[in-house]
Structure formats: structure tokens, C-alpha cells
């Protein structure tokens, strides 16, 4: 038999033909496509029993109730709690993204000791015992050196058991240096003190649900000012009722857009407008009579410096418009209210502005009046044995920030004064710093100085849940549970019309080796033994909660929140100013042609909590593009500065020069550059890390002469084509 190439060709052809008559090619084709439908590198969501549990959100001060959807033990989604008075089922993008904080890449997964330089985020994992021993040693060293009063603590709020546990720990050690980050509510409190002579803790509340006319001086009422969800609902009530909303601002913010009543004044002249309105009200004899001192002087001041015509020139408005607005505002039937606190109100702002706006409310009789602004006592329902003794023991000591003393009687805490103090002195007045639920390195203006100062603090303990700019400067991290893994009572301020306390619950088992910060503080105290340990008589934090909250504990556990009532504080004599503080609202070099104003975006969170992936994903490309911040300018400004939409430009202030991208928009005043707050974070997770620039790096802080807070609302800048 002769076999040649052709025979093998035949063999091959036969095989090919035969294969076609077997399932092989067809099954393989099918299976190959099925393979693409089940790529093994794609995660497969595991099925299981679905349950819902309710708790509260703490990612912003808004105080919303949430419910989590769990599949087995995983939290797969966060939704709004329909029966909660604040949000009634609605929820914001940040709240929804909470699962990405719980399971996110920025979580601190165990106690850590710094192993690299400050700010470098290099860590060594240690055990809880080691970590607690280290804190104990640090405290003891200071106590032994008689420097216990250099122990300081920064928290995000001074309400609820956790901040008070910190405060107590400091007090029992003999330190008065408990500090919180200042918000517009602190400025309101300062105003109440200054203009009503009130002492002690007083809160501001707004009766927005009954307001008939809203005049907002740059407050981002729906961007997140106060309690965001409550404000959105209130704004919708206004819209439904055709309640006029006047927004004094330089750009078409979401609030301005929603209100349909934008009143564009020149940047930094908001206070002038308020005073001009006061003048119009007084000269029109529209003001409400009341017990007022200094009225004549105030009227004279207005006449001299803030007459309608002067203000019209300054603000760029028409005099008739001001008079008209004043008339509407002062009409008792309007049930009007004037509001201030820029953007989301996460910064204190200038007292000049707060005082002017408050004077306006006073003249129109809108303080402690339905639909207006109320001064109410801050809740004092958390009382522990020995509080008074401890308070008096430290009351004589001077705080590092000098708050409450000398020139700074209006403020309880002046965190903004710390960095400049340290940098000026060249050494740290703080010996040991605790930081919990605050991110001062990120949120204080003049970041460069803040960093310098934090580098000088000998020892920093962070109780953070997630890595952030401040934690990067810590020596030790004692990681807190996320809000979804822990109990914590959260009294809500946020200008709500009724006092409200929420309770967060451990709706998820701890995902990592973390511990409730309450427990951590108690165990630190216990480890110090003696009088310190005695001041913390609770077994653990839950025991503390149960004993502190008494009857409310069970209600809170069951319902998740407790609403209260608050009667307004008697205002007594109103003191109108005879002179307005002269603080330039815009800092920086007057030779720079433009004014840089931070904008609080609805989808970017500029406070302690950084945007998780979902929230970041919806940030428009007019705020962040690639890794660059996008600034907003008007078409005219763009032409004048030679800028092009979408192109890069260099933004320069007295502090820093950064490359940004430009978005040309119709919705902004000429000569103004708006820059989104909330970007430029380091040490967050990979999604947000090193994207854009932190506004605070560009803004020179401006100490308010009246309150001591940082009053900066904008800064001079130039924007040139890159």
C-alpha cells in the first residue's frame, strides 16, 4: 500500500468531516460563549436570607434615619428610613455610599503604629493591648511631668456621650483643651452671646417649616446646610407654597437654581447688603419695636456707612431693589427669615456677616418668632457624677486656643488658632493630641501651616475609622468601628426645629479588628487607674449608654431616635452694634485680579468624611476631571484671562499655585472663580486619593476680630492659561 501526503490529507479531511458530525465543535462553541457569561474573575454575589435593620447615619451632621438591607451578614444597601422625622425615607448620595465606607479600602483594619514619616501613611500593625499601653505611657509621662494640661482633644462635635467621654477624660486629667471643629452654628452661638448677652451653651434652631419668606446670604440651603434632607424637604414645601426664596450669591448654586430668586451681589458684600436692608427697614420705619439697646447708635451707623445708596453701589444692586426687598422682608405677614453661614455651613464664617444678618432678623422681629430663627438652650441631658467638680478644677486653666477668655469670650473652642500658635512659637503647646471624628489637617484653612504645626505636636492619637489627612499625621491609630458597627448616641443640631437624638446600632458585626471609640476611651481611663479610672465607673460603653440615657436607652434601641421639645431662651435685652467689625471678607493679595470662592457642591463632601466611590462617581466633570479640580468662571472672565473651556490653567493665590481645569459657565458672576470643596484629599482610598486640590491649601485664614473664628470666605487669585 502506497501512502503519501495525499493519504494524510484524506485522513485529515475525513477527521474534519467526522468532527462536524459530532457534538464537539458545537458544544465547544456553545461552552465558549457560556464561559464568557461566567468569567471567573467576576465576583458572584452570594444569595441568602434578606433582612432589614434600622439605624442612623452619622456621615454628616444631618441626622437621617437609615435602614440597611442585609443578605446573610453582608450589608448590601443603605436606604432612607421612611418613619424617621428628618428624612422620611429619602436619602442622599453620601448616605447611600455608606456601605463603601464600611467595606472600603480606606478603613483602618487594626490598631497601627506609625512607621514612616508623618504624612506618609506608613504603618505597622499592633495589637490592642500594645496600643492601649502606649497611650497609657504617653499620658502618664505628661502627668508625671506635670504637663497633663497639654493634653488636647479634637472631635467633630461636642454632643453625645462619646465627645463627652473625651471631655471627661481630659478634665479628670486636668486639661481644659477639648476642641471641636467650628461650624456656622458656633457663629450663631457667638452672635447670641454678642447681641443678646446670653451665656453658656445656646443652640440655633430654624422654624423653616413655617417660614413664609426665605432670604439666604450664600447659605447652601439644599446643598447640605444644616440637615440636608430636612432642608430639601423644607425647600420643597416652600416651592409648593410659593414661598419666595431669595438667594444672595455670586453663582447659580443648586440652591440658587432651585430658588429661582438669585440676587447676585459683589463678592464679600453680603454683610453690607444685610446692613443696607436694615437701613431701609429703619428708614422706612418698618422695624418691630422691642427691647433694644443701642438702637440709635446702630441707626446712626447705618445712616453714616450703610445707607441704601452706599450699599447699592457696593453690592452692585439697585437701590430700589434693596428697598423693595426690605419692605417685603419686614412685612410681618411674610413670616420671613434671613439665614447665613456659607455653603454647607461647615465653616464658621465672618461675624460681621452673622451680626448683620442677625440684626436684620431682629429688626424684622424674626428672632424667636414662628417661622423665624430661635435661640434655644443646648441639651444638658447627659450628666455624670463629678461633672461639676471636674469643670471647676479646670476652669481656672487657660486653654491653648484661649477660647472663652480675654478677647475670645464668644467662642467655646478655637481650633483655627492652634496651627498659627504652634508655628509662631516654633514649638507645640500641645503635648498629646487625641483626634476623633474630625479631620483638621484637611478642613482648616492654610493647610501648609496646619501641616507644619501638626508635625510639631509630639504625639497624636487618632481614633479614626478611615485613613484621612489628619490620621496620616498620627503616631498611633486606635481604629473606631464604622457607624454601622457600633452603638452611639448622636444628638442632632443642624438647626432642626426640634431637638433630636439618634442612635446608631451595630447592624453589622465588626468587619475588621476595630473597637467602639467609647470603649476605647473607657479602657484608656481604666488603665490609668486611680481617680481617672473612678471617673469612668462603667463596665463598657454600652453600659455607659444604658446608664446615661436611662429611660431613653430602650426607646432609642427600639425606635432609633427620640424627639424632644425645646423652649426658646428668653432673649432679654438686644444689643445692636454701634460699630461693625471691619474684617475683609476676602483674604489675600489685592493685586490679584480675581476672587476665588469655594463652592460647596451637592455631590462633594468637604468635611471630615470623604466621598466614597458612588458619591465620587456622580461628581460632575465640571468639578473634577481626571485628577484635576475644575474651576468655574464666566465666559467674560474666560475671555479676559485668556482661558478656554475644558483646558488647563494655573490658579494662584498668595499661598499656592496649582494646575486646574477650567469650566466656562453662564451661571457665575464675572471676576469670580468658584472652586469645589472636598477634593485634594490624601490618604483616602484609591478612588479619591490625590484628585484635585484642597481649597484650604489656597485660602489664607483670616482670624475674626470679634469671635476668633476663621472668617475667610474667599481669597484673591489669578487664573492663567497653563
Amino acid at each position: 500500500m502506497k501512502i503519501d501526503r495525499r493519504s494524510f490529507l484524506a485522513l485529515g479531511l475525513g477527521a474534519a468531516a467526522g468532527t462536524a458530525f459530532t457534538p464537539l465543535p458545537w458544544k465547544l462553541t456553545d461552552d465558549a460563549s457560556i464561559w464568557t457569561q461566567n468569567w471567573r474573575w467576576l465576583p458572584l454575589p452570594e444569595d441568602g436570607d434578606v433582612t432589614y435593620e434600622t439605624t442612623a447615619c452619622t456621615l454628616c451632621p444631618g441626622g437621617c434615619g437609615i435602614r440597611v438591607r442585609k443578605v446573610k451578614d453582608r450589608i448590601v444597601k443603605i436606604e432612607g428610613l421612611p418613619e424617621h422625622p428628618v428624612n422620611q425615607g429619602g436619602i442622599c448620595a453620601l448616605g447611600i455610599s455608606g456601605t463603601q465606607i464600611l467595606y472600603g479600602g480606606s478603613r483602618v483594619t487594626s490598631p497601627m503604629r506609625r512607621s514612616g514619616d508623618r504624612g506618609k501613611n506608613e504603618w505597622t500593625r499592633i495589637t490592642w493591648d500594645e496600643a492601649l499601653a502606649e497611650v497609657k505611657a504617653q499620658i502618664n509621662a505628661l502627668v508625671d511631668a506635670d504637663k497633663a494640661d497639654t493634653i488636647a482633644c479634637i472631635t467633630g462635635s461636642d454632643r453625645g456621650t462619646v465627645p463627652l467621654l473625651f471631655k471627661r477624660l481630659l478634665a479628670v486629667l486636668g486639661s481644659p483643651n477639648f476642641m471641636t471643629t467650628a461650624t456656622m452654628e458656633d457663629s450663631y452661638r457667638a452672635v447670641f452671646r454678642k447681641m443678646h448677652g446670653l451665656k453658656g451653651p445656646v443652640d440655633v434652631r430654624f422654624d423653616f417649616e413655617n417660614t413664609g419668606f426665605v432670604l439666604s446670604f450664600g447659605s447652601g440651603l439644599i446643598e447640605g446646610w444644616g440637615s440636608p434632607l430636612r432642608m430639601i424637604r423644607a425647600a420643597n414645601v416652600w416651592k409648593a407654597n410659593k414661598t419666595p426664596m431669595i438667594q444672595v450669591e455670586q453663582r447659580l448654586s443648586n440652591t440658587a437654581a432651585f430658588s429661582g430668586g438669585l440676587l447676585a451681589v459683589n463678592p464679600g458684600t453680603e454683610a453690607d447688603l444685610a446692613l443696607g436692608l436694615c437701613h431701609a427697614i429703619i428708614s422706612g420705619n418698618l422695624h418691630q419695636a422691642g427691647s433694644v439697646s443701642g438702637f440709635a447708635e446702630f441707626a446712626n451707623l447705618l445712616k453714616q456707612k450703610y445707607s441704601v445708596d452706599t450699599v447699592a453701589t457696593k453690592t452692585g444692586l439697585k437701590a430700589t431693589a434693596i428697598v423693595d426687598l426690605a419692605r417685603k422682608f419686614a412685612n410681618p405677614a411674610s413670616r420671613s427669615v434671613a439665614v447665613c453661614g456659607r455653603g454647607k455651613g461647615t465653616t464658621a464664617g465672618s461675624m460681621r456677616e452673622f451680626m448683620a444678618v442677625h440684626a436684620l432678623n431682629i429688626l424684622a422681629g424674626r428672632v424667636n418668632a414662628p417661622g423665624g430663627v430661635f435661640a434655644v438652650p443646648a441639651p444638658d441631658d447627659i450628666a455624670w457624677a463629678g461633672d461639676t467638680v471636674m469643670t471647676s478644677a479646670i476652669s481656672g486653666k487657660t486653654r491653648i486656643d484661649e477660647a472663652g477668655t480675654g478677647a475670645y469670650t464668644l467662642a467655646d473652642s478655637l481650633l483655627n488658632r492652634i496651627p498659627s500658635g504652634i508655628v509662631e512659637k516654633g514649638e507645640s503647646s500641645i503635648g498629646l493630641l487625641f483626634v476623633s471624628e474630625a479631620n483638621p489637617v484637611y478642613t482648616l484653612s492654610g493647610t501648609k501651616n496646619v501641616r507644619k504645626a501638626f508635625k510639631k505636636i509630639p504625639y497624636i492619637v487618632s481614633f479614626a475609622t478611615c485613613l484621612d489627612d489628619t490620621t496620616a499625621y498620627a503616631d498611633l491609630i486606635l481604629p473606631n468601628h464604622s457607624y454601622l458597627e457600633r452603638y452611639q448616641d448622636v444628638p442632632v443640631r443642624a438647626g432642626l426645629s426640634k431637638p433630636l437624638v439618634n442612635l446608631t446600632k451595630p447592624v453589622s458585626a465588626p468587619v475588621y479588628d476595630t473597637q467602639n471609640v467609647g470603649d476605647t476611651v473607657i479602657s484608656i481611663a481604666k488603665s490609668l487607674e486611680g481617680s481617672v479610672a473612678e471617673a469612668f465607673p462603667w463596665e463598657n460603653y454600652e453600659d455607659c449608654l444604658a446608664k446615661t440615657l436611662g429611660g431613653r436607652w430602650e426607646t432609642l434601641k427600639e425606635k432609633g431616635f427620640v424627639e424632644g421639645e425645646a423652649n426658646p431662651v428668653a432673649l432679654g435685652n438686644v444689643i445692636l452694634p454701634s460699630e461693625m467689625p471691619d474684617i475683609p471678607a476676602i483674604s489675600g493679595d489685592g493685586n490679584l485680579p480675581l476672587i476665588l470662592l469655594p463652592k460647596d457642591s451637592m455631590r462633594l463632601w468637604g468635611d471630615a468624611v470623604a466621598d466614597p466611590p458612588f458619591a465620587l462617581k456622580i461628581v460632575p466633570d465640571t468639578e473634577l476631571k481626571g485628577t484635576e479640580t475644575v474651576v468655574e468662571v464666566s465666559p467674560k472672565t474666560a475671555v479676559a484671562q485668556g482661558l478656554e473651556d475644558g483646558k488647563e490653567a494655573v490658579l494662584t493665590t498668595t499661598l499656592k499655585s496649582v494646575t486646574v481645569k477650567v469650566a466656562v459657565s453662564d451661571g457665575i458672576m464675572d471676576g469670580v472663580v468658584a472652586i469645589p470643596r472636598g477634593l485634594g484629599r490624601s490618604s483616602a482610598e484609591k478612588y479619591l486619593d490625590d484628585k484635585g486640590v484642597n481649597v484650604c491649601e489656597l485660602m489664607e485664614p483670616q482670624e475674626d476680630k470679634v469671635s476668633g473664628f476663621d472668617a475667610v470666605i474667599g481669597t484673591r487669585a489669578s487664573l492663567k492659561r497653563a
Partner: protein
Amino acid sequence: MKKETEHKPGKKYGMVIDLDKCTGCGSCMAACMAENNVPCKDDESNKLSSITWIRVYRLTNRKPFPETEICYLPRPCMHCGGVGDQGHSPCVSVCPATATDYDHGTGIVSQIYTRCFGCRYCMAACPYHARYFNWWDPVWPGDLKKTLSPNVSPRMRGVVEKCSFCFHRYQLAMEKAYVEGRRDLEEGEYQTACTQACPSGAITFGDLDNPDHAVAKMKEHPNAFRLLERLQTNPKVYYISSREWVRRAGDNYLKNEPTNSKPRAAAHHG
């Protein structure tokens, strides 16, 4: 064995979005992503490859400051029914592999991601940009995988996806109803994630044909309109705006045409 041959008249699920209430907060987008296992890439600032089934657009009246007005407009999939609601929606008719179809029972444009082979013809067909292509494989790094819901299957790269009106919620509601021996749903039993999340209550969802449902009445509002009605796509998402310029921005008009001009009566393709 009971045969399911009885055919009840189909439902027509749809949405009415009150633009006067929309603040532009973006909750609907985030809620949708969390509900439907939509992934996040490291950089999502390129909106041309960023998957957001519902997207909030920013409309302006194009007047100079300070006369400028802005309106935020959330745009889910319109679930177009086509002329006479016969299911001739722009995207369904063009899909070569029958990977998307029109559900006459609910009026929802449904799809099989695992059938799609990624030709993107449906995207070309959709004038609303409601369809998104998975240019990348989805990634949930680390423990973020734990956030995945088993109700919606994650999509692989190379396929097109879009808003489903949270159809899995309909399925789950129906399962519950079946176990309870019902075949019909109450209005509240089936709601989309965006509807639930909206802080303003701007989104209302329900059966457009059911007079008991809120949407049926709302869509008759004099200020109600739909996007690109003149294309005869017959969307199931209605918008309400008290502002004329917004209603006009909902469709294309020649210079002197009044808002609400309808297409000429010519027989439409198909």
C-alpha cells in the same frame, strides 16, 4: 396542572419626574448604582464611559448671568413603547441577537446581558444616551464585593446595559404575591430604587394605565411633557416643569415652532 393561558391586559409601568422638585443632588444615581451592582472605576470623570443608568443632566436657559436659570433633569431609560406601544422602541428593533425586547406585560424594555455580544447598535439607536457599554470589566476591590446584591447579576465587559426600572423588585414583589396567592401588586409594592431614595420626592412611579396609581393622573398635568416626543419613541417617563424653557428643552423645535408641536402625521417607519 393549571395552565397560565389567561392573558390579562398588560401593565404600563412608568415614571413622572417633577423637575420643579429636583434639586440635582444625585441621590437617584447613587441609589441606582447601589441597587443594581453598578461598579465604579478609579476614574469616573470621563462621563462618556461612566455607567449611570439614571443620569442627572444640567439644563440651562442659556441666558447670561444673572438671568441664567438651571434645571436638573434625571434621565433613566425611557422604556419607549414606540408608536401605539407596540414595542417598536428604537433600541429593541435593532438588536441583532434579540438580547433586548419589549415586555408587553409591564411595558419595560428588558434585556439579557449574557446574550448581548456588544455591537452597540442599540446605543446608536437610543437618542437618550440611556444605554451604556461596559468598556471595562467591573471591579470591586477588597471587601467592596460584600456590597453586591444577589438580585442583579454583575455585567461583564463588552456588553451594553441600562436602567431596568429595577425589574428585580417587580420580580420579588410578584414572588411575594404568588406565595400569598395574588397575581396583582399594590402601587407601593413595586417601586424603583431612585423613586425611594429621592429626598425631594420628585419621582413618582407606577402603572401609567392604572387610574388608581398616582402617575396616571400626574402625566395628564398641563405642564407634563416627555423627552423627544416628536421622534415618536413614546417614552414612559414624563416630566413636569412649570418653566416653559424647560419644557421646550425637552424636544427639538424649528425656530418659529411653538413648544409642544407634534410630529407631522406621516406614517412612521415600522
